[in-house]
């Protein structure tokens, strides 16, 4: 890997971070809305008596933070600085909790859910896809799994509603909502871990169900290509066992483009996971976002948007950088 490529990729990452912060800053301002004003109107329409100290505190923090008396370019520079330090301001609905605190609480849930679901669907999908291209696959693999491709056309959170109805409402095998039982206090213990697992199975499964088709399709077409290669013919001529040819010769070479697919699908997957969390009231970033949208909590919305865009870009950067380690044929070289 050359230094040139490394620098180019890192520059791209910084550019995405910068663009994300910039649209966060300019879009809401362009429409000329005042989040504090809106929040107060919402509270008044709900008949809530807002104490004047609270309002004064909010406005003071807000003005000091964003220096609204300063010229626009000054505010913009300040904003970029704040974003770079992950300082997203305070939540309007949960004043004085900072947005960063709320996100810190939510992130482990989302990452856990996404990681589990992605790994499971990647593993199953890749193996199934490889088997489907392999002429010697069992009959049921080649007949049942194509149905999953149709599922991948349907948004996963809707699949979630159906799963929830069948496995939590009709037959209460799994809980209806949340990330852990309400009577439990989050702690590091076996019982709590099992409780979390029970709550995670359905949301994870709805992501897995929708994604298997995506991975299987990619793997199938790669396997078809690989099967025509000379080294497969040579392996067969050597009289190697079928399973060895399948795993060591065919799959190992076909799996590499799947890693690129993993990086490219990340954005779509995370958008879907946010909606799955909303359907399952799972305590991750998606639920924080839903609460924020309901409460006109602008700084929280902006924080979530910035953080998710940044983490997707960062993960892609990491995948791109470790890719040459996985595939020795790849050299990042500038011509």
């Amino acid at each position, binding site marked *: 890997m050359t230094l040139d490529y490394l620098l180019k990729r890192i520059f791209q990452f910084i550019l995405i971070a910068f663009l*994300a912060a910039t649209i966060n800053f300019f879009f809401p301002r362009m429409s000329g809305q005042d989040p504090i004003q809106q929040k107060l109107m919402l509270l008044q329409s709900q008949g809530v008596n807002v104490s004047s100290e609270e309002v004064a505190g909010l406005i003071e923090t807000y003005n000091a933070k964003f220096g609204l008396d300063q010229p626009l370019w000054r505010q913009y520079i300040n904003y970029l600085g704040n974003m770079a330090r992950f300082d997203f301001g305070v939540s309007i609905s949960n004043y004085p909790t900072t947005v960063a605190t709320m996100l810190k609480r939510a992130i482990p849930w989302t990452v856990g859910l996404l990681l589990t679901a992605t790994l499971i669907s990647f593993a199953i999908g890749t193996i199934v896809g490889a088997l489907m291209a392999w002429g010697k696959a069992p009959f049921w693999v080649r007949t049942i799994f194509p149905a999953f491709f*149709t599922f991948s056309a349907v948004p996963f959170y809707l699949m979630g*509603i159906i799963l929830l109805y069948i496995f939590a409402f009709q037959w209460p095998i799994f809980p209806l909502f949340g990330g852990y039982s309400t009577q439990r206090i989050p702690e590091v213990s076996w019982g709590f871990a099992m409780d979390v697992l029970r709550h995670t199975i359905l949301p994870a499964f709805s992501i897995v169900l929708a994604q298997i088709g995506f991975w299987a399709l990619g793997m199938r077409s790669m396997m078809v290509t690989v099967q025509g290669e000379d080294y497969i013919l040579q392996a067969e001529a050597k009289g190697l066992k079928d399973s060895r040819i399948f795993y060591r010769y065919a799959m190992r070479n076909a799996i590499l483009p799947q890693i690129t697919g993993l990086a490219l699908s990340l954005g779509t997957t*995370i*958008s879907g996971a946010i909606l799955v969390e909303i359907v399952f009231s799972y305590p991750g970033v998606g639920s924080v976002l839903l609460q924020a949208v309901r409460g006109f909590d602008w700084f929280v*919305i*902006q924080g*979530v948007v910035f953080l998710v*865009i940044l983490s997707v870009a960062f993960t892609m950067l990491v995948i791109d950088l470790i890719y040459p380690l996985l595939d020795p044929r790849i050299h990042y070289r500038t011509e």
Partner: protein
Amino acid sequence: MAIQSTAILEAPPPSANRLRDTLLYFRRNHALIAGCALLLLIVLFVVVGSIVTDPDDARPLAFRPSQPPSAEHWLGTDRLGKDILAVMTEGTPQTIRIGVTAGTIGVLIGTILAFFSGYYGGIFDTITRSAVDILRTVPALLVLIIIAISVPGDMSVLEMSLIVAALAWLGPTRVLRAQVLVIRQQPYVEMARFSGLSGPEIIIREMIPNLMPFIVAVYITSISGAVLASLGLEAIGLGPFEANTLGMTIYWNIWYASLINGWWWWWSPPIAVIVLLFVGLFLISQGLDEWANPRLRKRV
């Protein structure tokens, strides 16, 4: 027409009866037929709904809330007192309209960008390519959220379409540009260039007709993507609150926890229509893919 160069070599000369040929081809392309049938089912549902219900039935407090399906209300009523069949009759076309409007804008912009950058190359191509490469790694839903919260006041169905259209050009630009790069090297394009046709003439008279099946396939995909994006935004609560679109119906279902309350008749119709719509569009795009890419035609 789509496959001129290969058609001359392989297929018999086109028969006089093109309509019959088209129909025969449709009969072979099962995915396309199945997809069209599913969409037709949705149209039928809306037509029946509009005969049976009155638009006023889809207003809040029109009836007793949360009633299960009955002879009077075929799909029951929701928590807000609307007749669900009337809601669906009004909302289904609205959601489709959002998809078609945003998809059309996306494909138009995408086609123009793809042909100009792909055919002419140069600095404009570099900018387009980098923009598409960078933006496609960003989760679209989150960018759309920022745009949606910036819309002041209540959102209309048209505004919803325009918000979704903001990123709808990315996919078409990327896919079509790659195709333009391929066919730019084809002998017939070179021939046209030698015979003195100008760039725009070549694009409009030679390249666009040849890529038409491809553009149509991309169009269907982009409609489906736009519907998906609009449903996501609406489910979060960033949609036209006054409208009864499918996504807003899902939003109210989440808001009133219809699942836990056992109001299955409220959440199942929008999901059924959405599933039909997506699977239908998916099958159509598969069928069109086969048409656009003759190498996939196994049953010819």
